[in-house]
Each structure stands twice: as C-alpha cells, then as structure tokens.
C-alpha cells in the first residue's frame, strides 16, 4: 500500500535554524494551501461534478481554488475517474510537466481500484502505481461537497507540510517508472527528464535510480535543454 510505503521514506524537510526563514517557509506553505490551481483536464466521468463545484452554487474560488489550462500553471492534477491506458500516458506526461509542489487527487472509486471497470482491458486499476497520489476522494461519483471537503483536507495537509508526495516521484522514480514500463512497454519514455531534474533540484533519493531507469537510459536519448551556445566547435551541419 502506498501510504505505508510513503511513511517509510524519511521526510527530508530539515527545519532551518533561522526563525525568519521558518516564518517565511510557513508563509509560503500557507499561501500554497490557500491558492490551488486545478488543471483543466477531464480524464473521466467524475469531471462532470467539477463544474458544479466550481460554479455559482459551491464556488470553489472562495477557497482560492480555480481552474487552469495548461499543466505548467497548475498545482493539482485531478484524476476524475477511470484512466484508460491511452489517457494514462497523457496523465503521466502532464504530471511530469507540472511544477512542484504538485498534488494528485484521485477522484472516484475507479482511481482506487478500477471501480466498476475492474474487468475492463482498457483502464488502469491502481493509480498510485504510476504516480504518487496525495488524496483519494472515493465515490461514484463524489458529490461536489465531497470534492470540496476533500480539497479542504488537502489544504490542511499542505499547510502542515504533510502533502509532499510529489517528492516521492523524484525519490522513488525507479518504482514508478517500472510500473509504467510494465504497462506501456520497455521503450516507454517521456520528454521530461526526471532524473536530471531530480539532480538539479537536489531531490535524489535512494529509489531514484535503479534497474528501470537503466533500461530507460538504454532507449532514451535524453532531451538536453537547448542552451544558448557560442563559439564552441560543433559537428558540421548535416547536409
């Protein structure tokens, strides 16, 4: 179970000695909890209960929650229901494109265990095999009230600094990648280079590298950023 596995990982949020820095950290965490941008991505049928939650009747904006269009802008990835395998690839790409701290909320029973599509060949059953999930809101489909109260719970956890499962994706990338490879085939890769990113942001963990990432490196030519370059000798342009 993912939750128990998560608890085994030491949380490396070292408390800074400087009280000013701590106050600042608390402020940022507070703001994070009060300003949540949801990605506008209807992955499944639970999305039908999001417009009511967002619009006049339940008005999520009063809690600082508002929808955003592209993954770059968003904080929360709502997996609203079953994810078909085709969608799951996009969801993973989208998740990797989002800026951390990012939170995944699995809405509907299907994200927990396949729901009523447990027999279906086309849907993934266990979302947290492929990406760390912060919160499940079960139900088929959960009412807007449930969605909002779930998000409020998430807000509390963000404020207390507990919702950091996004770090788990970096620290245990090998595990997630392994599951992804199992489902999508060995040559699975996304344009986002999680390993370099983990190194860049100092988020490497024991589980970042492993046999699956080695497999990935065999297949993938990592996409290096197009850094500006000047003067140094390069290969002759391909004619």
């Amino acid at each position: 179970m993912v939750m128990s596995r998560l608890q085994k990982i030491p949380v490396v949020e070292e408390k800074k000695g400087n009280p000013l820095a701590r106050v600042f950290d608390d402020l940022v965490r507070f703001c994070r909890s009060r300003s949540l941008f949801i990605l506008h991505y209807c992955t499944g049928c639970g999305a039908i209960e999001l417009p009511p939650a967002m619009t006049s009747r339940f008005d999520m904006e009063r809690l600082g929650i508002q929808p955003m269009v592209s993954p770059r802008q968003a904080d929360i990835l709502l997996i609203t229901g079953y994810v078909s395998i085709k969608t799951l690839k996009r969801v993973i790409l989208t998740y990797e494109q989002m800026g951390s701290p990012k939170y995944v909320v699995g809405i509907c029973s299907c994200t927990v265990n396949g729901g009523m599509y447990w027999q279906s060949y086309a849907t993934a059953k266990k979302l947290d095999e492929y990406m760390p999930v912060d919160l499940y809101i079960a139900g088929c489909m959960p009412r807007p009230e449930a969605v909002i109260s779930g998000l409020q719970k998430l807000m509390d956890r963000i404020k207390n600094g507990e919702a950091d499962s996004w770090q788990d994706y970096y620290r245990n990338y090998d595990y997630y990648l392994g599951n992804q490879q199992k489902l999508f085939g060995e040559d699975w890769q996304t344009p986002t280079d999680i390993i370099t990113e983990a190194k860049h942001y100092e988020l490497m963990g024991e589980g970042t590298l492993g046999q699956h990432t080695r497999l990935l490196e065999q297949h993938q030519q990592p996409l290096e950023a197009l850094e500006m370059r000047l003067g140094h000798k390069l290969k002759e342009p391909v004619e």
Partner: protein
Amino acid sequence: MSQQVAHWLDNLLKEIEGIEVRRKSSRRVRVDVPADALPALLELLQGRAGYIHLSAISCVDWIDDGEFELVYHVWSYESHSLVSAHIRIAREPGVYLSVYDLYQPAAFFERDIHEMYGIHFEGSPNMEKFILTEWDGPPPMRKEFDSEAYINEHLSWQEYNPEWLQELVAEGGGVIIPPEEQRFSQKKK
C-alpha cells in the same frame, strides 16, 4: 400508413434473391440476405425506398458458428421505418465490402468494427485505428479475447487489508471467501 409502406417494401425486396423478410413490428423490418446481395439491397433501399439514414452497423461474433454477423440498420425519414439487414460472413479471413459509397456514416462504424473485431472492409476510406491507437493486443471484442486474463497479466489491484480487518478475521469474524471463489486478482499468481 406504415403498414402500407411495409407491403410496398415487401414487393420491392422480392427483387433480391435469397432474401428473407420478417416484420417485427409496424416500424421494424428484419431482412436476412446472403452477404453478396447486401450492397444491392442497400442500394435498392436507399435509391428507391428512401432509406437514406444509416443508423448503425452492428457486428456480432458468433464464434461457435465461425461467423461474424453484420447488421445494417437503415432508417427512412419518409416512411418512418427501420430495416435491419443481417448478413453473415466467415470469421476467417473476415473481409467484407465497404458501403461507404452508399452511406458516409459507414466509415466510422466500419472503422470501429475493424479495430474491435478485426474485420477488414474493402473500399472503406480509413481503416486506421481510432480508439485503440495504442493497443497492440488482439481485437478485443472478439469472443476469444479474454480480458480478465489480459488484466491479470498487465495490471494489479490495490490490496485492502487494514489491521482492524485482520484482527476481526483473526477473531473468527469477517467474511472469509474460500480461495476458489476469490476474485482472480486476489489469487496468487
């Protein structure tokens, strides 16, 4: 009025050989034709009887007979009746003619049947995959495709066995499912 129309239709349909017409209700007519007579039938229905709306093409996999059944549902906006034309084609090699030149909606249904059943329609404008573009297994709607086995192989389930339940079971309570009745996901692989 629809009764009259149906009689008129009967006369019209006699022009096709080997046809069997059954009127199921005042607005539903079932027609069974040999596979090679279908294009002629549809042409007749569309051109002379006003059945211009192809409502759907359904496919049934009669695996025991080794045949696919294709059902063409056409509707007439004039006589307000629906004709379902049934044909049977051999399961192997599973090739049939496209009716796209008669009915444009056929393109979608034929494409759908192609990816779900693997039947190839000759002359259809687009036989590319649409829904299962990233699927490399066999056509899933065929009866021989066992989706549970596929899931077993590729996917796994969340185990739900919290401590309180374990305690309950240990005390002799809870629901204990005999192994043979367990859902396959809980079986040992």
